[in-house]
């Protein structure tokens, strides 16, 4: 019934249109209070976009700070300007042209940024079935700050060495309940959260996940429910399981096993913008890849910059290496600064307009 439409896309377009339409309406409308109303619509839609990205905290902060802050704006707008029942602020054509020109310049800057920045392929749905687990995910402050600058590490995943029969488009466990050998990383991940424990496998076709029904500590096995959900779109993430290969600390050069597609490997840039993560007993270490050599038949090596790595606990033996290919979107930084300066100017201008008596006319007298 709804298969043709992705709900995510639908909500994205609805919120995006509301955000843009609200922003245009703020500029177009002349009544201060209507402006505030449209500002609420626009800012609230941006919060909706955050929720759509599963960034609950940022969305809530957007609501509390920006949308809630509009209340104060509204109250002051009324108190400072109220000379009649419905005041209007009329702008002259010259001002309109000037504002339009500056707005177009800003828009072109943003469009240019979006076009030139090489975004990572984020086709896969964000992994959100698991509640935030500090043991696995580490701290959120650093990823948040990095994401703000355009560096977008994917959350750490559960890596499992598992006998999975994967064929065709879907990976199905053949019998009613599958027994999968798990490693320590998974046990670290089985933290009780608000959402069920989920086993995720990263296959070449994409990600499959399934709900964990029970775990057996003695056998080191986990039983999952009988069906894997369908594979979500293939990401450019792939995994290397180094069973038995003891990694003490974080090595500068890591061995890559065979079996990685050359096309996948070629996506890894050598300029330090790609990152490698080691999931190690629930601790995650991240470092930037500076160089790699790879041959499809014999394997290869990976060189990382240890001075830039985000060190967590690195004791214990290595279980799995998880690649995350992210690029430094340095292009975002400049527009971010420009927009913030622009907002400051807008605030000052709004205060000036509000105080300027010359253009304030009561309704019906213009």
């Amino acid at each position, binding site marked *: 019934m709804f298969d043709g439409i992705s709900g995510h896309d639908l909500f994205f377009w609805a919120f995006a249109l509301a955000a843009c339409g609200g922003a245009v309406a703020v500029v177009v409308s002349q009544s201060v209070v209507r402006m505030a109303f449209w500002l609420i619509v626009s800012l609230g839609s941006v919060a909706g976009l955050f929720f759509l990205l599963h960034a*609950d905290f940022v969305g809530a902060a957007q*609501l509390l700070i920006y949308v*809630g802050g509009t209340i104060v704006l509204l109250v002051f707008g009324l108190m400072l300007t109220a000379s009649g029942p419905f005041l209007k602020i009329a702008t002259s054509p010259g001002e309109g042209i000037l504002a339009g020109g500056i707005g177009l310049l800003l828009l072109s800057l943003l469009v240019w940024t979006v076009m030139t920045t090489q975004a990572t392929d984020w086709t896969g749905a964000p992994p959100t079935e698991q509640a935030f687990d*500090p043991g696995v995910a580490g701290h959120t402050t650093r990823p948040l700050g990095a994401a703000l600058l355009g560096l977008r590490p994917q959350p750490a995943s559960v890596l499992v060495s598992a006998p999975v029969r994967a064929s065709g488009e879907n990976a199905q466990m053949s019998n009613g309940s599958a027994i999968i050998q798990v490693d320590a990383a998974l*046990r670290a991940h089985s933290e009780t959260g608000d959402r069920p424990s989920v086993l995720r496998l990263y296959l070449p076709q994409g990600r499959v996940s399934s709900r964990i029904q029970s775990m057996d500590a003695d056998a080191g096995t986990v039983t999952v429910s009988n069906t894997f959900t369908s594979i979500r779109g293939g990401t450019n993430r792939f995994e290397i399981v180094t069973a038995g290969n003891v990694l003490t600390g974080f090595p500068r050069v890591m061995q890559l096993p065979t079996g990685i597609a050359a096309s996948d490997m070629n996506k890894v840039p050598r300029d330090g913008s790609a990152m490698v993560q080691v999931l190690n007993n629930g601790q995650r270490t991240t470092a930037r890849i500076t160089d790699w050599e790879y041959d499809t038949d014999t394997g290869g090596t990976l060189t990382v910059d240890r001075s830039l790595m985000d060190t*967590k606990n690195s004791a214990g033996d290595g279980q799995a290496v998880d690649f995350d290919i992210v690029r430094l979107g340095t292009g975002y930084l400049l527009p971010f600064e420009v927009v913030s300066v622009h907002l400051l100017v807008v605030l000052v201008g709004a205060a000036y307009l509000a105080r300027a008596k010359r253009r304030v006319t009561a309704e019906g007298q213009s």
Partner: protein
Amino acid sequence: MSGIFAAGSLAEYLKDPVEGWGWSESTAYVVAAIVHVVLLINVFALAPFFFIWLERKASGRIQDRLGPTRVGGKFGWLQSLADGVKLIQKEDLCPPAADSMLFRVAPYLVCISSFAAFVFLPFSEGWTAVAADVGLFLIVAILSLEVFGIILAGYASASKWSLFGGMREAAQMVSYEIPLAICALVPIVTIGSLNLSDIGRAQSGWIIDWMIFHDPFTFCTFFVYFTVATASCKRAPFDLAEAESELVGGFHTEYSGMRWSFFFMGEYASMFLVCALAAILFLGAWHTGLPVVDDMLQTARDAGGASGYLANLLGMAITIFKGGLLVFVQIWLRWTLPRLRIDQVMMTCLKYLIPISCFLFLGVIVWPMLWLTVSDAPISHEGNTVRIGTTRTTWLPSALGDRMPAGPAAAAPAGAWSNSDNDGSNDSSDAETGEPQPAAPAEAPEDPAVGNTAADDPKSGFASRRPRRRQGGQR
């Protein structure tokens, strides 16, 4: 029918080709979302239905009257329905001087923001429409939007009574949001989670394990929170925004019919919301406070199936009952206390409630250290729960960084909280150094390498965990 109880969520059941209906993923999610929303709207709409009747009945009794007696039998319990029918029939007026768009939109804003907050409310173990890790923060953020509708209604009516009401409401809300947020912080720092389900779960056990009896500061915070919550619902004695004896009807002077009733649906729903939130934060959420009963319910939940649903339904009834009880207290207050003046309202908040809540917030931060220093109770550690003595269970947040010791590797040992050698630097998994620094455990000197114990023993991770069975939420 057993399949629906075994499935983790409704969407999963609908997707399941064997037990369920075998629908496609997107169809299943859309249908499941609709079902969740319809269920929630019922809570949202039935709460005002009941509480308006309760308000009329209680106010009647307090004023030595009978209250409604005619509609629906002896107690007049269908009075709200009769009111609703009357309001639907009324003409929907919009004053010619009003800003018609804002005038028409304002009641919906009130209703929507009040309803949206219900989405994050856990009614029972795992029964949340949207299980968010920052649920409490989200509810506080969304509740702050309700005031927009009031201000817009007051402004757009083009009437001075309405404008006065709207402005008073704005001033009141902007001030009272501060102590409300600080009071909500108190359970957060005590339990160490913004997740409402975690907060509810942490209060299992005897009644003294409820957050309100956790320490003297949380006890006081509950009353401050309740006062502020009453004010944030603009209920008497803080109902300056409508103040019918001085402002005719305040912000809703110009409204009639269904739009008028939307304001009241929003008001009664958010009354219930803040009271249910108080029950979840302070009064043990879905727990009865009797371990015998709670353990039985938990066993039923763990068993899953129909009995698990029944147990959760009972838990929901308990949450709603606690919330309803607090709503009754609000009604009681409204009909027995005189209204404050606007300057008194502001003074109460700025001069008293904000300093008091700040003090309580500080106190609740200091309390764990104080408790550990003073008491000689033995401290044991299991999972995220730190047990002091034999009966008292509390969740202690680590001072910095990783807020919960998670997994075998993080392994915050019990010794880290030992009272013999604590010097304040006992956060076991420090963010900045990246190395676990277990304080020398006084209780377990025989263990030479506490930090690596769990890592060396791969089986230790399972011991204290129960697999999560039932999840009401779907994203």
